[in-house]
C-alpha cells in the first residue's frame, strides 16, 4: 500500500534528509535524542502524539476515535493507547521489519493517504523518534512515574520580545532531562501569538500578559509571560498605595510599566459603594450627612454604615439566593419562604461561610421549615447536584467530565461520576432525607460509580461510616483546604472590581492561573483571619484605592486584568429597576397583588417579570448571559417606549411634578435631579446648558422635564457604577 518513490525523488529526498538531519542534530544536541537510548512509549511516543494533536478531541482522541483508531484524550491512558497502536488492527499499525511502512509512521508523514493530512515531515525529529521506537521493537518499557515537570524560559533577543521555552522533567526522582521537543505548547486562542512550535520559541508581539500551556504526559503547566508597556504617563497619576491590596496591585502595574487612572470623584465613590453594598442609590439625606462627616474618617464611617443597614441584608439575600439557586416549586410557597429566611438570617448574622456550606450540604428534614435543606432539594438529581456544588463551592466547571476526561483540566470521569455518587442517596421530596440507597452509573466503566472527592480521593468505607455527603462536606470546610475560601474571595473580588483574579469566576483550573496569585493568597488569609465573614472582606475591598479608580479608557488594548483603571459595571436589572423608581419617587406596583414592591425582593428565580427579563435578569448562575449588561436593540426600545420607565416617568406624580406644582424654580429642580440621579451637583457648564432650554409655558415645561429626566436616566453615568 506504500508509495514507490522514483530514484530521482529518492536522491533529492536523501539530500533533503541530510540537510534536515544536520539541522535536527543542532536541535538534538539540546535534547537527548542523539544517543542510542531506548525510546520509551509513555514518555516519548505518547507525548509526541499529544504534541501533534493526534489524540485531541477533534481527531483520534474523540470518544469514538477516528478511522477506527481510537487514542485516549491527550494521552491520559497509555495502556489503552499501547494496545491500540501495537496490538489492535491485527498489529498492522506497526511493521517491525520495515518501520517506515508502519501505518503509525506512514500515514501522518504523508506516505499513505491520511484524512488528517500530513502532520509531520518524513525527515522530522518526530518521524525519527517513531522510526527509532519501532526499530527497537515497539516495546512498552518499564512504567515510570513523572515526578517533576517544569518550564524555563529566557528572552533571546535584546528587544526582549522573543522567548525560548525549555521543558525539564524527571522520572522516578531521577535527574532532570530536557523534554522540550516532546512537549505540546499552546496558546489560547491558537493564533493569538506568532510562535514556532518546533523550536519552542514564542514572539510576544504586543505588550500584555500571555499564558502558554505546556502539556507533557499527564501534566499541564501554565507559563505566564509578560511584556510591559512602559507607558509614559503623568507622574501625578502614580499614587502611594494604601494598604496591602494596593501594594500588590501596584507592584504588578509597576512591573508592566503601566500608570494608574485617577480615582473617581468622592460623590461617585460614595454612589458606587452604596450600589455595590446595598443595591441602592444614596438618598438625598445620606448625601447631606456624608458631607457633614469629618473627611479623614468619612469613607470608613460610610462603609460601616452601609454594612450595618437593613438594605445590606436585603441586597445580600438577593445575591446569595441567586448564587444558591433559590426558586419556587409549584404550590409550595413555603420552599421559597423557608430558604429565603435561612439565607436572610445567615447574611444578617454574617455567618462564617464554611458553616453555611456545611449546613447546605448536610441538612435534612422538612424543607418547609428547615431552610437549608432546600439546597439539596432544588438540586434536582445527583448529577445536577454535583455540578452545582462543583461550580458554587469549588469554582470548577465539572460538566465536561461527564462523557470523557475533561479536555482543559485534570478532571476525569471518575471525578464527575464519583461526586455525583456522593449525592446519589438523597430523597428530594418535601422531606429531604440523606443516606438513602442510591447510586449513579459511571459512564466510563458502566458500573456503579464509587463516591469520590474530585481530584483528591475515593471515599472509603471508613468515610462512609458517616454519609458520603458528610465526608465531602468535612473535606470542603476543613480549615486546611483553601478551595472554598479561594472561590468565595475571588467571587466577591470579581463582583466588586468587575473582574475576578481568576476569570471567569467559576473557572478555577490549572490552565487558568490567577492574575495576581499573591494577592489572592493574602485575601484568603485575611478572610480566614476574619472568620470567613463577608462584611470585613467587603470593607477591605471597598476602602482600597484600586476599587475607587475611574473607568477612564487609557489606551486601546491594555487589558483590564491589571486593574490600572476601574472597570465600568452596568447596574444589575433588579437594581436598575428599583433605581428608576427611587429616582422618580414613584413606587412600582406588583400587578398580581396591587402592592408596592422592590425588584431586589423578588428572589424567586421562577417568577418572571417582563421588564426584568428584557433587561437580562440572571435567574440562574449557569444561565447567565454574558451580555446581560449590554444594551441591544430590544432593551433600548423597551427603555425608550416600554412600561418600565414611561409609566412612572409620565405618571404626573414624580418628584419633578411635585416641584413644579410647588412653584420651585428651574435651577432648584435641575440640581435636585442631578443629586438623585448622579449623587452630585451639576457643574456650572451643565447648568448653563440646561437652564435656557426649559420652556416657560406650564405644559411644555412638564413635558420638557419628562424628556430631560429620561435622558439622565439613560446616560452611562447613571446606568453604570
Amino acid at each position, binding site marked *: 500500500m506504500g508509495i514507490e518513490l522514483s530514484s530521482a525523488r529518492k536522491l533529492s529526498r536523501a539530500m533533503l534528509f541530510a540537510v534536515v538531519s544536520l539541522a535536527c542534530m543542532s536541535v538534538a544536541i539540546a535534547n537527548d535524542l542523539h544517543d542510542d537510548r531506548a525510546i520509551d512509549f509513555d514518555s516519548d511516543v505518547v507525548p509526541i502524539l499529544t504534541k*501533534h*494533536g493526534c489524540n*485531541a*478531541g*477533534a*481527531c483520534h482522541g*474523540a*470518544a469514538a476515535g477516528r478511522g477506527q483508531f481510537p487514542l485516549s484524550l491527550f494521552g491520559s491512558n497509555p495502556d489503552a493507547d499501547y494496545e491500540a497502536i501495537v496490538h489492535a488492527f491485527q498489529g498492522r499499525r506497526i511493521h517491525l521489519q520495515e518501520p517506515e511502512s508502519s501505518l503509525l509512521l506512514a500515514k501522518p508523514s504523508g506516505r499513505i493517504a491520511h484524512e488528517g*493530512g*500530513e*502532520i*509531520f515531515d518524513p525527515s522530522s525529529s518526530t518521524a525519527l523518534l517513531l522510526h527509532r521506537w519501532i526499530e527497537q521493537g515497539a516495546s512498552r518499557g518499564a512504567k515510570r512515574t513523572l515526578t517533576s515537570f517544569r518550564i524555563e524560559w529566557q528572552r533571546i533577543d535584546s528587544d526582549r520580545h522573543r522567548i525560548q521555552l525549555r521543558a525539564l522533567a524527571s522520572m522516578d526522582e531521577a535527574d532532570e532531562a530536557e523534554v522540550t521537543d516532546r512537549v505540546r505548547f*499552546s496558546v*489560547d*486562542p*491558537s*493564533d493569538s501569538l506568532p*510562535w*514556532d*512550535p518546533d523550536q519552542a520559541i514564542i514572539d510576544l*508581539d*504586543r505588550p*500584555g500578559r500571555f499564558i502558554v*500551556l505546556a502539556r507533557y504526559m499527564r501534566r499541564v503547566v501554565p507559563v505566564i509571560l509578560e511584556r510591559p508597556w512602559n507607558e509614559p504617563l503623568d507622574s501625578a497619576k502614580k499614587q502611594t498605595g494604601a494598604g496591602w491590596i494596593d501594594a500588590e496591585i501596584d507592584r504588578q502595574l509597576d512591573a508592566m510599566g503601566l500608570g494608574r487612572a485617577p480615582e473617581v470623584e468622592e460623590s461617585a465613590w460614595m454612589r458606587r459603594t452604596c450600589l455595590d453594598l446595598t443595591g441602592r442609590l444614596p438618598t438625598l439625606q445620606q448625601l447631606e450627612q456624608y458631607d457633614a462627616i469629618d473627611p479623614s474618617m468619612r469613607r470608613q464611617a460610610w462603609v460601616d454604615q452601609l454594612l450595618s443597614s437593613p438594605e445590606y441584608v436585603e441586597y445580600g439575600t438577593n445575591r446569595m439566593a441567586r448564587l444558591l439557586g433559590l426558586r419556587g416549586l409549584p404550590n409550595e410557597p413555603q420552599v421559597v419562604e423557608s430558604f429565603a429566611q435561612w439565607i436572610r438570617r445567615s447574611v444578617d448574622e454574617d455567618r462564617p461561610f464554611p458553616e453555611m456550606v456545611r449546613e447546605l450540604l448536610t441538612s435534612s428534614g422538612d424543607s418547609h421549615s428547615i431552610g437549608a435543606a432546600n439546597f439539596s432539594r432544588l438540586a434536582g438529581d445527583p448529577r445536577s447536584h454535583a455540578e452545582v456544588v462543583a461550580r458554587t463551592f469549588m469554582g470548577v466547571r465539572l460538566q465536561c467530565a461527564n462523557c470523557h476526561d475533561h*479536555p*482543559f483540566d485534570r478532571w476525569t470521569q471518575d471525578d464527575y461520576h464519583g461526586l455525583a455518587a456522593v449525592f446519589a442517596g438523597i430523597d428530594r421530596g418535601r422531606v429531604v432525607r440523606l443516606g438513602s440507597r442510591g447510586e449513579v452509573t459511571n459512564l466510563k466503566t458502566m458500573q456503579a460509580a464509587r463516591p469520590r472527592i474530585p481530584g483528591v480521593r475515593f471515599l472509603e468505607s471508613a468515610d462512609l461510616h458517616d454519609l458520603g455527603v458528610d465526608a465531602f462536606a468535612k473535606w470542603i470546610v476543613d480549615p486546611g483546604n483553601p478551595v472554598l475560601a479561594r472561590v468565595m474571595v475571588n467571587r466577591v473580588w470579581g463582583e466588586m472590581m468587575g473582574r475576578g483574579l481568576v476569570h471567569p469566576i467559576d473557572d478555577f483550573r490549572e490552565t*487558568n492561573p490567577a492574575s495576581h496569585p499573591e494577592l489572592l493568597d493574602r485575601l484568603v488569609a485575611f478572610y480566614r483571619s476574619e472568620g470567613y465573614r463577608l462584611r470585613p472582606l467587603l470593607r477591605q475591598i471597598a476602602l482600597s484605592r484600586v476599587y475607587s479608580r475611574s*473607568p*477612564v*479608557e487609557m489606551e486601546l*488594548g*491594555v*487589558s483590564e486584568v491589571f486593574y490600572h483603571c476601574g472597570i465600568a459595571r452596568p447596574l444589575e436589572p433588579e437594581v436598575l429597576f428599583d433605581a428608576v423608581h427611587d429616582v422618580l419617587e414613584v413606587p412600582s406596583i406588583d400587578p398580581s397583588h396591587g402592592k408596592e414592591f422592590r425588584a431586589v425582593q423578588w428572589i424567586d428565580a421562577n417568577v418572571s417579570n417582563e421588564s426584568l427579563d*428584557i433587561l437580562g435578569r440572571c435567574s440562574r448562575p449557569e444561565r447567565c448571559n*454574558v*451580555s446581560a449588561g*449590554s*444594551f*441591544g*436593540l*430590544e432593551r*433600548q*426600545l*423597551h*427603555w*425608550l*417606549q*416600554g412600561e418600565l420607565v*414611561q409609566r412612572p416617568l*409620565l405618571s404626573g406624580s414624580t418628584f419633578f411634578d411635585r416641584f413644579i406644582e410647588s412653584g420651585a424654580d428651574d435651577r432648584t429642580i435641575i440640581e435636585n435631579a442631578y443629586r438623585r440621579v448622579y449623587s452630585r451637583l451639576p457643574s456650572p457648564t*451643565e447648568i448653563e*446648558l440646561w437652564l435656557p432650554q426649559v420652556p416657560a409655558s406650564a405644559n411644555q415645561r412638564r413635558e420638557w422635564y419628562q*424628556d*430631560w429626566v*429620561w*435622558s439622565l436616566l*439613560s*446616560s*452611562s*453615568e447613571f446606568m453604570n457604577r
Partner: protein
Amino acid sequence: MPSFIPAKTLMRRDLIRIGCLFPFGWIGADRAMAATTNHVGFGTAKSCIVLWLDGGPSHLEMWDPKVDVPAEVRGPFGTIPTRIPGIHFSEGLVRCASLADRMTIIRSMTSPLGEHGLANHYLLTGHHPSPSIVYPSLGSLVANQRRGNFGALPCYVAAPEIRTGMGAGFLGAESEPFLVRTAKQGGALTARDLDFYPGMDASRLQRRREMLLRIEENHQQKQGTHSIKSSRFDSAFGMLASDSLRQAFDLNEEPEGTQAKYGMRTFGQGCLLARRLVEREVPFVTVVQTGWDTHENIVLQLRDGYAGAKEGVGLIPTFDQAAGALIEDLEERGLLDQTLVIAMGEFGRTPKLNPRGGRDHWPRVFSMMMCGGGLPRGLVLGASDRVGESPARDPVEPADLVHTLCMRLGIDPHSRIMSNDGRPVPINAHGKSIDALG
C-alpha cells in the same frame, strides 16, 4: 478543547498584516483581499435567512434517508423522490422535494463537537468555542459590516428566540440580534415597544435623542475618552424615526391566504416575517425552530406532533410547509437569487435508533439544505456512507461552510477584525473554500 492546528500551517502563518483602520474595527488586508473580492461568487447574496433547527435534526429523517439498510437504521419513515433525478428525501419533506431543483444539499457535513452549546457555536460562528474569547455569529458579522450603510431597520433579526452562538460576542451590543418574541406561549410574533407610549410623539423622541447625546458627550469629555458621536440608544432612535419599520413587523398586513401558506405556527410565521424583512433589505434573519433534539419517539416528535394525529403536525411537516412557502415566495418576488436560505442544525443523529425510538447526537456526519443567493441549483454535495455514519466523500466542516457563506455575503473570510482586547482576529481562520459551491 484546544483546536488542533497542523504544525506546518502555523509555520506558514503570516504575521499580522497592517492596513488602514476601517470603521467598525476592520483592519484592511492586502492583495489577497483583492483576489477574494474579485472571485465570481463573492457578494452574490444581499441577504441571508437561517432556519435554525435547534437540537440537531436527524439527517436520516430529512435530507439523507437510507433505504437498503437494517430497520433500526432506516427508521420509521419512507422516502420520496425529488426534482433532482436519483435523489430522495425523507417522506415528510413533500414541498421541499418539489423545490429540490432550486436547492443545494450537503450530505457530508462533519464536526467533532457533539454537545449542543459547543456545536451551536461552531456552526453559527465557524469557530471552535474558546474559553478566552467569544466569537461573533455570522449574523453579527454581517450586521457589523453593513451597519453604516443601512437605514432604520435592524441588520440582524432573530425570532422567536436566541440560542447559543447567535450573539455578537466581542463585537458588542450594536451587533446583537434584534429579538422578536411571541407575545405569550404560542402566541403571535410581535416586536415589542415599537409604538409611541401614550403622550409621546416623534418630536419628543428627537428631543430625547439630542439631550442624551449632549449628556454623553460631556461625560466622555470628562472621562477623557475618545468621543464617539453616538449613544447606546442610536439603533432604537434610528429605527423609530422610520414609519416603514412598524409595518415591517406587522404580519397582519399580509393577506390571510399568505399566512396560511406558511402555516400558523410560530415557525411558519417567523419565516413569513423573514421574507418581509428581506424584502425591506434586512441583511440577516434567523428563524429558530426548537425541539429537534429527538432522543425519544421520533414518530411522535417529527411526524405526528401529538398522539393520535391524523394529519402530521410535528416538526417535519411544520418545517416543510414553512420552508417550502418561503422559497416559493422569494422566487415569485424575484428575491431568491440574492437571498441565501439555509436550513441546518448543530449536528445529526445516531444512525441506529435507540431503545426509546429516538436517535442521539451524531456530529460525525450530517446534512443541511441551502437555497438561493446564487448557489448552484439542484446540487447534492458529498455523501455519507452506506449507513449514514461517516462522510464517504467531500467532508465539509462548519468552518468551511462559514467560509463559503462569508464569501457569498460579501465578507472576506481572510480579513481580520479587532477584538475587545486589542487583537486582530481572523473572521474565518481555518475554513477552506468549497470548490463545488463556487
